[in-house]
């Protein structure tokens, strides 16, 4: 499974439990939709750090990096490549 699909599956399972698999698209707005509240962000960042071995800095937690599943996948891939 590619990174984007993995993240999509994770966010669906953790943050939209019970929703149909096609209810979240890679470019859907995670911020405006209210999916990423404070606790969701804590859970998502701890998941990224545990699962992908990256460290997310405070300055990186921005809408540019977390605004959609596609943006998140780009961010994680970039962090892994520069590690």
């Amino acid at each position, binding site marked *: 499974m590619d990174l984007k699909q993995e993240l999509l599956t994770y966010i669906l399972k953790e943050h939209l439990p019970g929703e149909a698999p096609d209810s979240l698209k890679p470019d859907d707005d995670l911020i*405006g939709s209210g999916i*990423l509240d*404070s606790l969701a962000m*804590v*859970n998502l960042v701890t998941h990224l750090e*545990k699962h992908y071995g990256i460290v997310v800095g*405070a300055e990186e*937690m921005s*809408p540019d990096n977390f605004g959609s599943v596609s943006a998140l996948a780009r961010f994680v891939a970039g962090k892994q490549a520069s590690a």
Partner: protein
Amino acid sequence: MNLVELLDATAARQPEHAAIIGPADGEVLSYAQFRTWVDETAGLLADHGVRKGHCVGLHCPSGRDYIRLTYAIWRLGACVVPIPTELSAEEKMRVCQGIALDHVLSDRKGQGALSPALAAPVQRVDDFIGIAPAKRYRETPAGFAEVNAAFIRFTSGTTGTSKGVVLSHETIRDRIHAANEALKIGSGDKVLWLLSMSYHFAVSIVAYLSFGAAIVLARNHFAKFLIDACNRHGVTLIYGAPMHYELMAHESGSERLPGLRLAISTTIALNRSTVEAFDRRFGHTLSQALGVIEIGLPCIDLYMRPDKWGSVGKLLPAYELRMEDVGLGGELRRIKFRGQGFFDAYYDPWRTREEVMADGWFDTGDLGVLDSDGYLFIKGRSKDIINVAGMKFFPQEVEAVLNAFPGVQESCVFARKHELFGEVPHAQVVLAKPDAVAEPELKAFLGQHLAPYKIPEQIEIVPALVRTASGKLVRDEHRIK
């Protein structure tokens, strides 16, 4: 006495004043509108059988609905039992089994996880929530009816031996007055709210609505949006966790927060780097409050003094502090408090405040030093709580799940420092035999039983756990490595 009366008084005093602003643009509820909404909701809940003395499990995300449902339950003389939405399905079931609930109220999205705890199908209350009678897993404790209970927080409590902390309406009223001697919240305040309402409500939301402030709800918690919300709505006070201030301090823009009066951090000690970065970015000194579920906010450090770094501040006037010499040497003492607004009882096993505080003092279990200027420094805790961005849990809960996995012989879970969240859990595991466990399966197993923030960031396979001479597990990361 009922806390709804304090809301009624505010609504009578300032009906047109904003009570709740946001989260969507242009969404403003005045005190009069909010009180009407509470009354309408109470009417609907009464139609579905909610009565005085009932315990109602509330499973709902933080927001306007959480606030109106809590007040509507109180309007009927019933007690709120938060079922945090962030818990795993299994953890939610433990709340339903641990407290004798009469009803479960849930937002429609979250009803699935609670279905085993329901005695009948969910009935629609309105577009947002449904209600169902709860299965009875236990009897209500004999003394419960004597407490005018507003909340039961299903937590292990500060001392870790009891389940469920019962807070009455009178207790919460006393708490908010005690805290407001320092915070001085009034109708001129607009408070940006950032924490989980399942864990933070009494000395915050209730205080704001009782003292006539407006609550500003953010649409999300990205720093850019928080700063924007502050300036757009004229926020005077922020109530958040260190993580929120760390994020705001590192936001790449240049907007300041000119209207800000207080930015209070709670849940876990602030890092000095966060305080300094926030000061550099906004020219504002953060405040820190010590919150204890059984007590309220006994200490607040309003303007953190550089020479008092690491202190939780000075004691509020409503509290007394006893630093008890327990033979630890130096100035280290055991921290005990007494004062107004203390918890009413532990739920299971049922123990009243008077029984728990036999000598009149509440023993926090924490160790600390009180300096000559009256600043309290907490130097250690006699318990093993792990605190991830303000969400606290005991390591034993995670160890029990790890130990239940086939092939795991024993485990030890402890806190590791984390730059953004303060702490994250880390696990060491001893296997019954080499290669007995595949880590992906073990993590998946943990994911089924625990909320994501409780899952260890790393699971280390070790030949043996570190123990003290008396055989107790060592959970101090500095002593383990």
